[in-house]
């Protein structure tokens, strides 16, 4: 696979952003839409040429020296997991643009330009094979989203955007600190500075467990806020509620996954021993999040806030799968990342379409829409069911795998398999408590559907028909939903399209994480490592910092 396609995926939206920014206001939508549609082509080509039999290999790799002294390169490459996440991102692109057509009326150039920049940054995160590039893109997703919320959000947008930015930024700074330590440690070990992710993940697990724990904590500080994991979730409901529809869809569809992707790509491979040690704590937090956020959903009157909290609850399953640290858990988790983007993205679109017509998100003011908007109701129920985890739709396989993984990860419960083969981080109780999330999800989502779709028609007093939009969904709106709905159905019926693709990298990650690289006598080793760090490397490392200071 030629790296040019990946580069195109990053470059095209940026070029498009420039064209939109310096083009005419009334053509902004068209230009943005065309750019997004064009980016589908390289994504399709990548899918076509990607060799899934070598799913764990980063294909289409390319690398350009950037700051050679520090070993910083611009290197890209995609394995199966990142490829699928990139495809999800690219797929959501035209959808969010189409969903903004009538919703955004002012300052369109700025809006669409930043959406395109955001797209490039998100692809960059998944494609990066160099820590610096990863981190830059990771942080750069914040700025466009901040602007989208700040300038195009609803009433409380200033507070929401500020909290979103500061909270996630603070978290990421700690992640950065942790990663810098990892780079430093690897440099000590190998004698050369490198930010190559593959090298880092290969060497870093040699860190003593106590160091790993701190690094893990630092990394989780950023990733857990991003996921968001209980109790670091309070920015999300606010940001979701205030963001424009496109912002919410991207936030739920892709940005939250950066957190779980980070855990999968960095926390687990770099600090496996500490991760195994702290996985039960992580599991407990996710289970609390599942139940706690689910119950909060139940008492929400703001429909968008409800779906936002449901994201917190759902992402709990995702982290639970990661914490189980076995094949089913990680597969389930990656599957969850993909499918949650589709179903919750769909729900946010539905809410957006409703909001455009009624200008309220309060379920007390608007409801019983089934008689007025049957097509809207159909899709609403469809995405709700996908979200509830109805078998046959996309949410189910991932939920099954995440819960099974929690069972499996306590070896004493599986008579048919040798102990130790599954990892021993969680246990059946995690599955039982997380499972109650299934019931709670059905409860709040069906109550939501009951209020908003069924019952006698309720409309706000000052409601009058939208001048551009028909009563029920327009053709454009239906076409934004159909790709998501089809994807929900296809991946519900053929989850193996994804599962087979990701099985290689997952198996490798699990195998690498569960075989400890700690030498037999850890105490002795620490001394050695310290000696190693103190004396040997200073000669061999070309340390630019020391060179620069005199």
């Amino acid at each position, binding site marked *: 696979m030629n790296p040019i396609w990946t580069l195109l995926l990053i470059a095209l939206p940026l070029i498009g952003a420039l064209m939109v920014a310096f083009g005419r206001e009334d053509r902004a939508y068209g230009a943005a839409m065309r750019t997004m549609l064009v980016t589908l082509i390289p994504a399709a080509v990548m899918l076509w040429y990607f060799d899934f039999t070598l799913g764990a290999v980063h294909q289409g790799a390319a690398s350009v020296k950037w700051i050679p002294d520090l070993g910083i390169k611009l290197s890209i490459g995609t394995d199966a997991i990142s490829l699928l996440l990139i495809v999800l991102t690219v797929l959501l692109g035209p959808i969010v643009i189409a969903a903004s057509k009538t919703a955004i009326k002012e300052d369109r150039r700025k809006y669409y330009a930043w959406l395109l920049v955001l797209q490039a940054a998100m692809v960059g995160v998944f494609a990066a094979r160099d820590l610096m590039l990863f981190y830059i893109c990771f942080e750069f997703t914040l700025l466009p989203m901040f602007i989208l919320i700040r300038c195009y959000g609803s009433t409380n947008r200033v507070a929401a955007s500020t909290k979103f930015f500061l909270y996630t930024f603070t978290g990421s700074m700690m992640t950065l600190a942790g990663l810098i330590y990892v780079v430093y440690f690897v440099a000590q070990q190998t004698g050369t500075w490198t930010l190559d992710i593959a090298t880092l993940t290969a060497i870093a697990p040699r860190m003593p467990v106590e160091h790993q724990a701190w690094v893990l904590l630092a990394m989780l500080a950023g990733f857990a806020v991003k996921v968001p994991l209980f109790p670091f979730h309070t920015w999300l409901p606010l940001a979701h509620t205030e963001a424009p529809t496109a912002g919410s869809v991207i936030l739920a569809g892709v940005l939250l996954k950066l957190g779980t992707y980070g855990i999968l790509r960095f926390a687990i491979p770099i600090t496996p021993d500490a991760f195994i040690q702290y996985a039960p704590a992580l599991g407990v937090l996710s289970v609390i999040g599942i139940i706690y956020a689910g119950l909060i959903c*139940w008492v929400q009157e703001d429909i968008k806030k409800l779906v936002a909290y449901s994201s917190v609850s759902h992402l709990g399953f995702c982290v639970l799968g990661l914490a189980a640290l076995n094949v089913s858990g990680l597969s389930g988790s990656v599957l969850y990342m993909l499918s949650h983007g589709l179903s919750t993205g769909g729900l946010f679109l539905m809410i957006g379409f409703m909001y455009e017509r009624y200008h309220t998100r309060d379920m007390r003011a608007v409801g019983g829409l089934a008689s007025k908007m049957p097509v809207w109701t159909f899709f609403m129920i469809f995405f709700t069911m996908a979200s509830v985890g109805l078998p*046959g739709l996309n949410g189910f396989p991932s939920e099954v795998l995440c819960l099974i993984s929690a069972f499996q990860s306590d070896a004493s419960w*599986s*008579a048919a398999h*040798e102990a130790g083969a599954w990892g021993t981080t969680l246990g059946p109780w995690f599955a039982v408590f997380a499972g109650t999330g*299934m019931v709670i999800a059905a*409860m709040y989502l069906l109550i939501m559907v009951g209020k908003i779709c069924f019952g006698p028609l309720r409309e706000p007093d000052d409601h009058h028909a939208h001048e551009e939009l028909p009563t029920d969904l327009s053709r454009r709106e239906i076409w934004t939903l159909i790709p998501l709905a089809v994807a929900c159905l296809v991946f519900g*019926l053929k989850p193996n399209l994804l599962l087979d693709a990701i099985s290689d990298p997952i198996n490798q990650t699990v195998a690498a994480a569960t075989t400890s690289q700690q030498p037999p006598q850890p105490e002795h080793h620490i001394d050695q490592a310290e000696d190693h760090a103190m004396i040997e490397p200073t000669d061999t490392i070309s340390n630019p910092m020391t060179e620069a200071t005199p």
Partner: protein
Amino acid sequence: MINTTFLTSTLAMLQDGHAVDTHAPAVTHAATQIAEVGTGPKWILLIIGLPFLTSILCGIYAMIGNKTKLPAWTVVAGSGIAFLTTLAMYMSFDGTPYTVHAFDWIQVHFSSEGGDKSMIANFSFYIDTLTIYWMLFVTGLATLIALYASEYMSHDLGTSYCRFFGAFGLFVFSMACLVMGDNLLMLYLGWEGVGLCSYLLIGYFYKKPEAVAAAKKAFIVNRIGDLGLALGVYLTFVHFGSLEYAVLFNDPTLLGYIESAKTGDFSAIPRMAQWIPLLFMVGAFGKSAQFPLYVWLPDAMEGPTPVSALIHAATMVTAGVYLIARTYPMFLTSEYALPIVAWVGTITALLSATIAMAQFDIKRIMAYSTVSQLGYMFAGLGVLTPTGGVYHVLTHAFFKALLFLCCGAVMHGFAGQLDLRKLSGLRSVKGWGIVTLGMFIGCINLAGVPFTAGFFSKDTIIAEAFVTPGASMIGWILLFTAGLTAYYTFRVFFRVFTGPVEYHAGEEHHGDDGHDFHPHAPGWAVNSVLLTLTVCSIAASGLYFVGGNKDTHTKHYAQTMVMASTANYESPYSKHAIHAAHDSHDPNAGAGPRGTIDHELSMPIIGGDPHKVMYYVSAVFGVVGILLAALLQGPKGWQGLFIGGRTNAAECRMDPIARMCGPIPKMAENKWYVDEIYHMILVTPLRIISHIFHWIDKLLVDGLVNIFGFLPRLLAWILKPSQSGVLQGYAVSMAGGVTILLLVVFVIILQGGVA
């Protein structure tokens, strides 16, 4: 410690080579070899595919704005062909179970140190006699009820009509997946699918808040059960390493467990394996509306009557029975699962029968009666007779569907009137003959009048309760409940169909004057369906006398079908009782899953085989119930037997008795306040907790974040004076900074750090 009697009742699958080789000769005459699972012809997939296709077609009709009865005919045709295909499947079945593969669904491969393992759950279908048995009445009834609904729903042709039949088709598809799926995840898919269709169809009249609330309640209460089922399925996979019936029920580990269970030695079975049936059981209680999860079913009557008949009486609610029958080997491995199933079924049967006695809405009475009859089925499964439970499913499906459809015809004809105090003497109204006949046949079945199908199937269950150790109390309660059942069933019949003609229009009547109301008698579609079901209900009793198999020692059709499936189990106590009746000595004493076989226990009533004695005893209970109903609810001078009976629709001789009982009838009418109690102890506290969480989230969790966010500002406020712009100040702080830096460097050098 296994005696020969026991071995004849050994699960046929024990023939699987590696199970118990030494006992192999003793079981060779069992009917089929479950172990051999072949692959079947692809045309079987029509049973799954056609209903799904009809559902999609109905969606297309809705999109193109069809306003005819086309959706109904599509679904009737789809279900009808599915039924014919099922018949063909039945005819061509040669006794060897087989699977049919549609496409791969979920396959996860684990490569671990313990070797490569796979979780395989495909869109495949497992065909054995149990599947065929279930699918025959599911597709058959679906066809009939779709035909009935084509007329019944004709008042809202158009989008709603399409919506109704779309969901109907989807239901048949989901039910087929549930029953035919060859693995537990497919069963779960169907399980959730029928739940969704039930939700959509209960909420069919979505502008009615009660309907919406009922739909929601059904789905959520079911989900509690589903959680149990889901956890059970996951645990099954984790413990046995497979979800496919063909592999799972031949798993040597499972067979070993069953072997120890059959001698009552449960200590040899790991605790987690014993948890699996307990979890399945919770799922079954939810779907089949058993105590304490039964509360959704009576409310589900808000849906259109055909839906109540098909989904909430005949097919979907029996899914729990199917689940337990299908996984009966696993239920045997748990010490507590089957006794709990038996007791829960019994309690449910009694509780809902008492509620049914006090209701006035005839559809609700039928709903509670469904809950009660499902209780019988569970009790049957629990007292070690899967045959009894499964046989009752079939007979109940016919007569309960018939009863519901009759009630529906009444409701339809009298503008929504369902109150038995406002209807009387319908048998004398012109055009209601077939409905009256259908109702009568349904009622005698439900009441257990001798020689009806309901009588035989209910009897099997009660008799087994008396031979199973420790279950005779269950038997007595079920007998008593049978009396209550006869009473409330004929209460409806005597009140609504006999006596002076009197009727009041229901709330759906929009005429200016109530007196101008003319009921409209059912048309040909409804009448023909009622007639067919009446014939079926009568014919079902014949199944008790035909279809036995000499080779496998089965006595009737249902038993033959059950014994050739995975539910193949015959209670050793039952066998013993039959033997003991012939020769009074005790030739086969031994152990069973519920303790030692006891000669005395097998003869609890009169010194004969309980299976025989029970015919007379239960007949007495049934007849007494009917006579009481006639006496208390019957019309004046009916057949010259009862003088001074009911002379109008509203009052009967029960009324003064009810008044004497104080608050009890009122409490029963209010369903013993179970809903209110649930609200008080579950819903309200949970809602309060949710509100508390909401505030915690707002104030505490977010508050802490805000405090952290405020810290920099606080720091800035403290440090603001230092940014005075006075040069000396900057110089001082610079000096201080340099000093600290130097100190740090000094300390590092002292420790020998930087070379």
